[in-house]
């Protein structure tokens, strides 16, 4: 069995050819340190400026509002810790949601140990935050709201514009983790009205180890890495020029091809969802039926457990995920699925399949066909399924 079907584009993506081509000159020829004043340095600085400019333009931001980081997690950490500590004199209250990425949740838990109070907003059955609860949670101690744009597990898109409006009215900074949004929904920081927004290159066919934080001009935030004067003295460290150049190219491609990308992945994703729901019983689609990441499908298959499902898929060459990649080492059921009200048992049978630019119709059909077989095999082994189907499933 040599067929390989990658359906884990929300975990990471292969780099596009055009991205690598753009990066190549910066490894060994134009290799200067962007802080050096000689020609090698200026060449690097120029590439850096162009990249920053491209990314700024792509999201309607100003050149000076884009700060490069080593990825999405670092940017989440910076945004939240940086704003929290810089505005400690104004208050110590932060509002976030129960379905954030761990790079937000674990930072909030850390801050709780350091004198901050955090409200974790509930979400409805589709994973949408409750705007009334948000409004009622804001106090005069609230300094930051952090709500993700697109959820990485169930794909649900939040009403970012509305949240930004509420935050603005109450004079509270608003950060949104847009790691899964970039390249999958249109983004304009001014139209949305957000104050901080972060991205990760490897989720949009760019290089791993690069990300960015958009910081609206005027936002009070602490520097993140102390040292050299890079990134306007807020994030020290020799700039990863090839990575940043590749990131900018990936953003450029993502924005240019946004419509065709969305159409492609949505069509295949819907084919997958239809095929699964039609051919398998006792399965539930998680996340919002319409307002969701165009490539995301998240199912719960009752009576079976996620890891054995993933392993079985892997044995036939299909790569999926149960929740986010970074928690796959953990035994707890997904905090996102718990937050939308699923029971432990059901949450355990979750499978995230995310479609991307290189996915084909054949990939989808093969996946549906294999899933039917695997789910059946695992259910035959399950003591839970037994109860439902009664004696008829005995061997």
């Amino acid at each position: 069995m040599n067929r390989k079907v990658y359906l884990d584009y929300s975990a990471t993506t292969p780099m596009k050819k055009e991205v690598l081509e753009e990066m190549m000159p910066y490894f060994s020829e134009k290799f200067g340190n962007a802080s050096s004043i000689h020609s090698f340095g200026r060449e690097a600085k120029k590439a850096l400026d162009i990249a920053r400019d491209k990314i700024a333009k792509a999201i309607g931001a100003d050149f000076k509002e884009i700060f490069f980081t080593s990825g999405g997690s670092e940017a989440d950490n910076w945004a939240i810790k940086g704003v929290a500590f810089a505005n400690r004199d104004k208050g110590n209250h932060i509002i976030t949601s129960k379905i954030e990425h761990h790079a937000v949740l674990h930072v909030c838990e850390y801050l709780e140990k350091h004198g901050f109070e955090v409200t974790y907003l509930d979400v409805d059955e589709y994973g949408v935050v409750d705007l009334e609860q948000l409004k009622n949670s804001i106090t005069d101690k609230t300094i930051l709201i952090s709500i993700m744009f697109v959820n990485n597990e169930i794909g649900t898109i939040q009403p970012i514009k509305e949240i930004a409006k509420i935050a603005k009215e109450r004079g509270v900074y608003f950060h949104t983790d847009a790691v899964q949004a970039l390249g999958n929904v249109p983004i304009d920081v001014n139209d949305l009205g957000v104050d901080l927004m972060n991205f990760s290159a490897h989720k949009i066919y760019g290089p791993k180890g690069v990300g960015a934080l958009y910081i609206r001009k005027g936002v009070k935030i602490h520097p993140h890495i102390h040292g050299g004067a890079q990134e306007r003295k807020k994030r020290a460290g020799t700039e990863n020029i090839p990575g940043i150049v590749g990131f900018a190219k990936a953003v450029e491609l993502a924005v240019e091809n946004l419509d065709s990308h969305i159409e492609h992945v949505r069509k295949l994703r819907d084919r997958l969802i239809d095929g699964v729901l039609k051919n398998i019983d006792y399965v539930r689609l998680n996340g919002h039926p319409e307002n969701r990441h165009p490539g995301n499908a998240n199912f719960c298959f009752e009576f079976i457990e996620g890891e054995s499902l993933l392993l079985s898929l892997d044995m036939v060459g299909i790569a999926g995920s149960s929740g986010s990649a970074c928690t796959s080492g953990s035994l707890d059921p997904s905090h996102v699925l718990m937050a939308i009200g699923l029971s432990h048992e059901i949450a355990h049978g979750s499978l995230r399949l995310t479609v991307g630019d290189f996915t084909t119709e054949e990939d989808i059909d093969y996946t549906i066909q294999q899933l039917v077989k695997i789910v059946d095999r695992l259910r035959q082994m399950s003591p839970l399924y037994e109860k439902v189907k009664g004696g008829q499933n005995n061997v």
Partner: protein
Amino acid sequence: MYNEKVMDHFMNPRNVGEIENADGVGQVGNVKCGDIMKMYLKIEDGVIVDVKFKTFGCGSAIATSSIATEMIKGKTVEEAVKLTNKAVVEALEGLPAQKVHCSVLAEQAVKAALYDYAQKNNITIKGLEDFKPVEDVHEHHDEDDEDEE
């Protein structure tokens, strides 16, 4: 993450199913991970002549159930009671640290089925005197949380 032997028992589990009118049935579950394991024993003259299992669980849970059934089949009740999770892990040639608890589930499922057999037949089995048929197995082995904040 899993070795070949584990994957073999996961993909081709031995003794899956149920036994009608089993002489002993045991079901255990693990609260932390939510997995459930059910064992059926057919016992004649104190010897386990047949064994089947059903498991709702991770790859390791399925593989440990499978190998545990192989390890006790043909054994006497007294021998089967001595099955330890350690022996199960060894038979599988190792499990990832965070998956060792799954083997505890297998040991407990066997014991629960033997306990059920003892109850039904009003006998006591040496080594099972203190056994409590709990549905929740708590044992957990977390790898390196040494000095977390």
